[in-house]
């Protein structure tokens, strides 16, 4: 595989595309090999990572241990919301969450090395340390989602069957867009790491509960200003066949894929603008 990487870029467009793909594949394979080299560490990581998502779900169960309804929703209904959110966040974190390391790459100058290679900067960054250990978390999220939608007593129609597949995927795209957009802040402000957390992990917590529990400008900002209401709350309402206590019409739940695409477009623009703004730290 090393030969493929070392070969000079060929003129033919098709050849270049296949060469690029082979290079990405090589990057991915190298990552998989290096991360599984230390078996015990990898297993500990797998277990540790699933723990975080488990505790998020446990928290919801504990809260329902001391109350019978949360923001007007029962445990079974709330679990559908948690399921979509956990699965989507864990999967997006697995695929794109690595971008969190961008501030470090910018600070250490490693980002320069990424930019001079004849491959896209974003895919390279994502593949450079694809955190395979997070697979366990995504699988647990999926299990919660499956249990939640099968036990919530949903009145299945063809439309809802489609939505139960499309909505979590749209949520993954949405969270992925949030990861990329917040990471681009570090092109302007290097020490912004924790700031991004407030939107990414904050968004995860926000989407784990019915938005009726929040209030005022805070709810307006997160739910509709940033669009987190469309990740799990509105799709869950559509699946459960419940009217929105806050008064939005029922079809809003079906707009989740559209909102996710808008978010992805915003992320793409933010990334391009950020890269153009980037000046090496010179280190």
């Amino acid at each position: 595989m090393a030969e493929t990487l070392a070969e000079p870029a060929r003129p033919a467009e098709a050849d270049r595309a296949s060469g690029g793909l082979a290079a990405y594949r090589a990057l991915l394979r190298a990552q998989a090999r290096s991360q599984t080299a230390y078996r015990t560490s990898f297993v500990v990581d797998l277990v540790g990572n699933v723990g975080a998502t488990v505790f998020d779900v446990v928290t919801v169960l504990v809260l329902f241990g001391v109350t019978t309804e949360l923001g007007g929703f029962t445990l079974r209904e709330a679990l559908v919301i948690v399921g979509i959110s956990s699965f989507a966040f864990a999967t997006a974190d697995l695929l794109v969450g690595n971008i969190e390391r961008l501030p470090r790459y910018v600070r250490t100058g490693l980002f320069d090395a990424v930019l001079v290679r004849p491959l896209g900067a974003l895919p390279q960054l994502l593949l450079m340390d694809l955190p395979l250990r997070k697979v366990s978390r995504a699988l647990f999220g999926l299990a919660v989602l499956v249990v939640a939608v099968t036990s919530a007593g949903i009145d299945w129609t063809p439309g809802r069957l489609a939505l139960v597949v499309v909505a979590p995927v749209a949520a993954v795209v949405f969270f992925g867009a949030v990861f990329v957009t917040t990471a681009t802040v570090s092109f302007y402000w290097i020490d912004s790491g924790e700031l991004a957390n407030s939107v990414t992990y904050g968004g995860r917590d926000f989407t784990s509960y019915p938005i009726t529990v929040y209030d005022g400008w805070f709810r307006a900002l997160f739910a509709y200003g940033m669009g987190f209401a469309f990740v799990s709350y509105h799709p869950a309402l559509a699946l459960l066949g419940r009217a929105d206590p806050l008064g939005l019409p029922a079809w809003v739940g079906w707009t989740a894929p559209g909102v996710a695409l808008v978010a992805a477009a915003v992320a793409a623009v933010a990334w391009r603008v950020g890269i153009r703004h980037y000046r090496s730290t010179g280190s």
Partner: protein
Amino acid sequence: MGSVTATVAPPTHTNVTRWFRTFGAIVASGFRRQATYRQAAVAGVVTNTVFGFLRCYIFLAVAGAAGTVAGYDRAQLATFVWAGQGLLAVILLWGWTDLADRIRTGEIASDLLRPVHPVTSYLATDLGRAGFAALSRLLPPVLIGPLFFDVYLPRRWATVALFALSVLVAVVLCFGCRFLVNATAYWLQDVRGAMILWTLGSGVLAGLYFPLRFLPEWLQLVLWYATPFPSLFQTPLDVLVERDPAPTQVGLVGLQVAWAVLILAACRLVQRRAERRLVVQGG
């Protein structure tokens, strides 16, 4: 000459005044070191504030129409959340790997040559760090929370003093726990496993995800008496919001002190054991 490790008591009579002066100087340098990371402090405060809103709304929704849950009223829950968001950075539950890093790189050797016991000098540095965090990280959420929520102010004067003491003991205890987790690096090459277990356990068992009073009574007893976790976070906050009558408050802080003494003793024991087998590599 005999052993040159710092844990062996010096042959001459110890000068107490000089000891305190040294301790004070290390505390001051710990404070100054943190004061250089101002941008990070601002980013941290923003994150704490976002999570303050999230947790506060969720717990208030749990209290629901009844307005009380597990012995807390709405104002007490708000104080619990906002003071807790500030306290998080003061006790520094996560993200401290200084000792493990120095053990891994071998720099620990220079710590061992100093005439101050490593546990004492690291504790002093941590107290300085906590002092700066009390100003930069504890105050902002405590001031921001009341702007948006009705908070509970202590009714008994003794509570304020007891809270200050409880926070101080929590810092010392948390330092001790972190020292023990880091010290596994003396035996293990890779402390990630221990670190992951600590991160997972401390978050949920200390009362950060939900107040531990939401749990069944027997489980609370087990947690308080058999683990140090509630003494790290839940106890100072319960003292502040006067969840219990004064005698119980004092008893909880007493339990905290007992845990702090026990854990610090364990730190010294572990350090002593580690020095007997430590071989610093490199040259």
